[in-house]
């Protein structure tokens, strides 16, 4: 955590002129974006603006048509990640959640989070069968770490329950917990508040702020709930029709003519 303080203001994600075509249709047009340590950045825009496509490009689900994506883990080396495989990008320290929650329904809550530890552990088939001391130690560590994370997310009482039996709000939190288990330096949340009631959204606010202060990670989130966006983020990037139309602090965005026009009044009062 101290490390974070030293590096304050360092760039950890840099996207330059990112474009993405789908069979001749341009979904993203020359997007630039920089995320710094300790920052909570929000990505907003009307439906179909290309926000999720942008996420998918960064996390390796799509290979961008043009442009560069660089990551620089705090204290680590800068690296271009275009075209790397999804799992490789996760193990480099970018973790994400999905718009339509994708938990593993028939695994327990704890196991869901244990999966997140996969890329930070290494026992193989032989280890699994022989269960040597090293494997047992690693396994115990996985369980312990996962439980810690779940406890922080307020899911400690649910560890042995099947994930599919969780109510919606808790399933969303489980997804964040699972992403946290991969030890990211940047957490990417795709509409974390979608489908939540006001109470749950309020709790999500606190959770996001706590993740930054306690875990020392940066957060990039896509969100439609303007109250949430305005209250947690310290930087906002607005997209429309695959282009970035504005960027700035919440105050600046609130006043931007272009943004208001893009939304046609929708939610702009926050």
């Amino acid at each position: 955590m101290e490390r974070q303080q030293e590096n304050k203001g360092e760039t950890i994600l840099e996207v330059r002129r990112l474009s993405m075509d789908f069979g001749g249709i341009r979904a993203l047009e020359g997007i630039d974006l920089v995320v710094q340590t300790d920052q909570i950045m929000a990505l907003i825009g009307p439906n179909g603006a290309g926000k999720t496509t942008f996420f998918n490009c960064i996390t390796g689900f799509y290979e961008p048509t043009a442009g560069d994506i660089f990551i620089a883990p705090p204290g680590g080396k800068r690296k271009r990640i275009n075209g790397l495989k999804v799992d490789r990008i996760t193990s480099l320290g970018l973790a994400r959640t999905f718009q339509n929650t994708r938990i593993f329904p028939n695994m327990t809550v704890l196991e869901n989070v244990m999966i997140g530890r996969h890329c930070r552990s290494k026992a193989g088939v032989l280890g699994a069968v022989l269960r040597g001391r090293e494997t047992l130690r690693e396994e115990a560590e996985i369980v312990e770490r996962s439980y810690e994370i779940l406890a922080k997310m307020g899911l400690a009482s649910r560890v042995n329950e099947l994930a599919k039996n969780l109510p919606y709000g808790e399933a969303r939190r489980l997804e964040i917990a699972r992403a946290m288990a991969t030890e990211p330096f940047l957490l990417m949340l795709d509409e974390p508040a979608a489908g939540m009631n006001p109470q749950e959204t309020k709790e999500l606010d606190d959770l996001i702020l706590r993740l930054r202060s306690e875990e020392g990670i940066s957060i990039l989130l896509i969100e439609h709930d303007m109250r949430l966006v305005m209250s947690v983020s310290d930087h906002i990037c607005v997209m429309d029709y695959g282009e970035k139309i504005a960027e700035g602090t919440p105050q600046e965005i609130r006043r931007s003519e272009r943004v208001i026009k893009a939304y046609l009044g929708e939610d702009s009062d926050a």
Partner: protein
Amino acid sequence: MDYFLEIFLSGLTRGSIYALIALGYTMVYGIIELINFAHGEIYMIGAFTALIIASVLTTLGMSGPAVLILAGIVAVIYASAYGFTVEKIAYKPLRGASRLSPLISAIGMSIFLQNYVMLAQTSDFLPFPNLLPELPFLESTAHIMGSTDFIIIATTAVVMVALTLLIKFTRMGKAMRATAQDRNMAMLVGVNVNRVISATFIIGSALAAIGGVLIASHIGRINFYIGFIAGIKAFTAAVLGGIGSIPGAVLGGLVLGWTECFATGYVSSDYEDAFAFALLVLILILRPAGILGKASVQKV
């Protein structure tokens, strides 16, 4: 040159049959994204029904094209009825289940139907009467293209045109296309999706039965197992052309028919079936979207 032409035409004949069966796969896949493993068995049941009806009619003293037409019609009706029922029993209860469940159910259904026919009828090959008439105007070319080949190719062509018209211009055809594109959206605009799915199974099965009657007359014998191999081959044809695409199924059928006939004609006949499987494996690895299919983007 005659040899080449002969092989070319027998490839065309064979390919037409594959195309008829492949259409059923492709239509069903287009609408519910399921490989209907039991489709080959529907084709087999069509052929068996035709054989049974034709025999009954012959013992009753009928002969000539009337037998063919009656047996064909009954076969089409029965195959459609089987296709409809299979969907209701084995697939409909599984809509919305995990992807694996309907596939396993489909394989189970395929095995069930095979053994049902085997137990009810026989495990031996049965001779199938050649119901197709000899066409006098083809006498001079009989060594290259016989009447049977001609009838198969002509029938296939007619059926294809009819199907295209049906899908392009009728209400049901429009509903099918809508459902294939987006099932939920189709439901929202008032398409009765259950009926569309049933209609798809019925049409696909009818086509398979036509294919079954034609090929059985052509080859002259059938058993309970013919559906399995034909099914895989027709599926290969569907994938080859681009699954979900109707012209693709036809193209795929023809390409497969030619590949098989040229490979057995010029290389070796020992591995006749292996060529189809090898082609299937290759196409799925190299170009899973098929010749006419569009590469789809993974939905995240």
